């Protein structure tokens, strides 16, 4: 029985007098007890589908043609009140940010109870039902959780509450919009498992929206790949993952680093996904400007969906689907950090970083929190060292210690064999040869500086001072180094895309001509194709110029691609250390094992998610 069906749905936005098709000709059919995955990078229009179903389209956006049917009813002709009555009862959402989806000033019990009231459940039955549902969502201490406020629970626990709420009213359709993006890797595996279990238990239809094609392939039976408002490929999940047929799907998969198998250079796509402002100039396949196999015809006219196997169709030319130009890149030369190679650039000896907080009456009680506990390791010249851990593991604190932004509470840090504090000054702050690339370019780039002034910031003051006429050519060189076009120089961060901003962020750190760069989660907010660019850029800087890089990340596949050596961190402690290949192939510490298991594997044949406690 069909629960949600889209038939040639086009959503049109009016932008300054022009109409732009934000979703083009979208068709799919979601049946009861079925999961369909919608995959796409940011800007692909996948969240727009959820908003179309709920009727919460932004101003100036409207469904201009096509049919949306929910449980046989035409959603578009349904009255406002009837449509609203469906939301929260028959159609429910699992949001991306669990913490912001819950009201911070009301307890879990109050919010869950209100939801049950909305579902028409009488008061005496509510409490028992809530506890039962929270238990089913594997929330520990369900009774106690009812009295808690959202901030007292972790992100994963809040998501469990929201999942319990979503399935409480036996809905027909659940739309999960990036439900695990804000969570840690291990939590992601558990939450995905929970959603799949609940879906199976309640025979619900589930629309699973994500940016991770591998994740979708393991959760869903069918996946649709979205690009700039088009569904470019649709088919059985295993088939799409094993034999991608659209050029975009191929390049998306090729740009994802693997956790197993031979290392290969990631082929990165040029440019980035067009914004809706430029949709009007792309009448044909919207991927054509970036497609390595495009020709005149597919850029001008939109190809009809072509069925290549039972239930697997693609909007791409026949010559591209077979074989195609986008195969795996050249093998990557693996650098092994031999014990003899390179002197230790930075050495940590029993370094502890603690924060004191005052509590109680007049702040007399002191509480100590150790962000880093007795860390001993060294970074050798010319290597790329990976630091892996989940949020709160202390990996960012290590990065800030290396850069000199934090001072150790105990232990010593030596740089090139000397103590890092001399005459009361931190030597790398005065030498400026250690730079930190911050995670969020939004916060790391002063919005009031132009790209030129950001890149040459190091030349403005202090020992590196250079007059204006010298700065210009060096800014142009830096721009080239990070792979940005020359016309970016006079723009401001707000006028750049996320990937471009991250490049400027890297370029500014390089402008100080550092010997060591600490990159703190610099690709975690980026789309896969942009991520491949940035990774290749870092590899190039390391291989050609011998730049030492400390790469902090939670993404194991990315760390494997980039780093020769890796430190695994958990709860402020380094639990495992070694060459990346060796650690990932034969993990010793249970934490490393669990982390490796929590990553969705490349092949759809391996069952995932694993059973986790």
């Amino acid at each position, binding site marked *: 029985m069909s629960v949600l069906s889209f038939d040639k749905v086009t959503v049109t936005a009016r932008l300054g007098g022009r109409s732009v098709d934000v979703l083009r000709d979208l068709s799919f059919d979601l049946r009861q007890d079925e999961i369909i995955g919608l995959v796409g990078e940011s800007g692909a229009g996948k969240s727009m589908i959820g908003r179309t179903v709920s009727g919460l389209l932004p101003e100036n956006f409207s469904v201009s043609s096509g049919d949306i049917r929910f449980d046989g009813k035409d959603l578009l002709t349904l009255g406002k009140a009837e449509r609203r009555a469906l939301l929260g009862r028959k159609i429910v959402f699992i949001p991306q940010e669990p913490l912001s989806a819950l009201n911070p000033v009301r307890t879990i019990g109050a919010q869950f109870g209100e939801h049950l009231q909305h579902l028409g459940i009488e008061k005496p039955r509510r409490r028992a039902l809530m506890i039962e549902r929270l238990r089913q969502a594997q929330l520990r201490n369900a009774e106690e959780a009812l009295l808690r406020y959202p901030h007292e629970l972790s992100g994963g626990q809040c998501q469990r509450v929201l999942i319990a709420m979503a399935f409480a009213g036996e809905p027909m359709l659940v739309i999960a919009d990036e439900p695990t993006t804000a969570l840690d890797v291990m939590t992601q595996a558990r939450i995905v498992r929970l959603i799949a279990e609940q879906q199976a238990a309640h025979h619900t239809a589930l629309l699973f929206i994500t940016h991770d094609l591998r994740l979708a392939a393991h959760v869903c039976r069918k996946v649709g790949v979205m690009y700039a408002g088009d569904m470019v490929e649709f088919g059985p999940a295993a088939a799409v993952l094993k034999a991608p047929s659209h050029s975009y799907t191929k390049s998306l998969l090729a740009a994802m680093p693997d956790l197993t198998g031979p290392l290969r250079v990631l082929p990165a796509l040029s*440019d980035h996904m067009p*914004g809706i*402002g430029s949709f009007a100039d792309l009448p044909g396949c919207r991927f054509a400007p970036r497609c390595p196999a495009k020709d005149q015809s597919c850029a001008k006219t939109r190809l009809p969906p072509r069925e290549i196997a039972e239930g697997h169709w693609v909007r791409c030319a026949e010559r591209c689907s077979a074989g195609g130009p986008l195969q795996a890149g050249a093998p990557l030369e693996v650098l092994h950090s031999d014990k003899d190679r390179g002197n230790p650039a930075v050495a940590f000896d029993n370094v502890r970083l603690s924060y004191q907080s005052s509590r109680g009456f007049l702040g007399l009680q002191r509480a100590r929190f150790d962000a880093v506990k007795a860390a001993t390791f060294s970074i050798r010249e010319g290597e790329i060292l990976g630091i892996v851990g989940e949020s709160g593991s202390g990996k960012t604190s290590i990065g800030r210690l290396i850069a000199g932004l934090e001072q150790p509470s105990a232990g010593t840090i030596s740089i090139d064999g000397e103590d890092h504090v001399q005459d009361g000054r931190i030597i790398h*702050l*005065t030498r*400026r040869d250690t730079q930190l690339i911050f995670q969020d370019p939004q916060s790391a780039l002063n*919005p009031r500086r132009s790209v030129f002034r950001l890149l040459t910031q190091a030349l403005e003051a202090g020992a*590196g001072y250079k007059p204006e006429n010298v700065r210009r050519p060096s800014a142009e060189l830096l721009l080239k180094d990070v792979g940005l076009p020359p016309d970016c120089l006079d723009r401001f961060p707000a006028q750049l895309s996320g990937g471009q901003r991250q490049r400027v962020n890297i370029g*500014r750190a390089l402008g100080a001509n550092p010997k060591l760069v600490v990159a703190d989660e610099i690709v975690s907010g980026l789309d896969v194709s942009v991520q491949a660019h940035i990774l290749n850029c870092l590899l190039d800087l390391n291989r050609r110029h011998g730049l030492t890089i400390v790469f902090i990340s939670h993404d194991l596949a990315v760390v494997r691609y980039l780093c020769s050596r890796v430190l695994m961190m958990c709860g402020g402690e380094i639990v495992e250390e070694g060459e990346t290949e060796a650690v990932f192939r034969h993990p010793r510490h249970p934490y490393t094992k669990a982390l490796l298991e929590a990553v969705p594997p490349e092949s759809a044949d391996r069952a995932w998610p694993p059973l986790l406690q």
Partner: protein
Amino acid sequence: MQKPVSSNVSAAVLKPVAGRWSPPKAALWAAALSPKVVVGASIVAVMVICALFAPYIAPNDPADQDLTNMLLPPVWSAEGLAQYPLGTDSLGRCILSQMIYGARVALLVGFFAAVGAMLLGTTLALLAGYFGGWVDRLISQLVDLWMSLPPVVLSLTLMVGFGTGVGNVILSIVLVDWTRFCRVVRSEVIVVRRKDFVAAARLLGFGDFRIIMREILPSVAPLIITLFTLQVGIGVIVEAILSFVGLSVPADVPAWGMMIAGARNYMYQAPWGLFLPIIAIFVTVLGFNLLGEGLRVSLDPRLRKRSV
């Protein structure tokens, strides 16, 4: 110097960002075109022209007394005279001319008091917000203490101590109103200070002074501009209060507050003498508030409409 190298990824030529971009100039244009700013700026412009060119605009010398024509109504009523378009006060002085000349004192005091309060308040706010710790505690507690004094009583007391005169009026307003700047700007400085670009500047070898001037001040500048415009309006009001009680400028200088004080005794016989200077104050302050509010919306990136 950066090593002259180019990376293999640069082969991938990136195209300009899709859609319209908005350089800071565009933000200024957007600001200039919002209705609040247009109306506010027009009012302010008219007031500034009146103040600057008072001798050429005013029909009479505001100090000239015409004792045969006391308490004349405006020209449109039956007893009005064309010579005094808005009538005369109890000493037979031209109300319109006094109002035009009164704009001089009002704007002079409003503008310079705002400049002074801005400089003092912003400096302390930057120090408190940037350095934190005991500097912040000291300055914040001073502000709290200062703000618990009733502002009008404080400026009255200061005026009694200093004596009348435009310079002293400005000084007393600065000493009362710097706290407003300090408190608001400080909290914004704290927000900016936590941004990663400030830490990045430290890693690039920037000293504290340079970070404050190059990174923090430009980020809080829109807020300061907005507060400044609002403060001019507040200065105009405080000046009117002080001149109303005769503690502002000497009696021979026309001021709106003084006109209200003079017309107070005759408000039943000649209400226009009371209402006209009140309208002048009202319109001026409204102009500055509209301008300030309009600038706040246009200069604050959080309130700016997102262009797609």
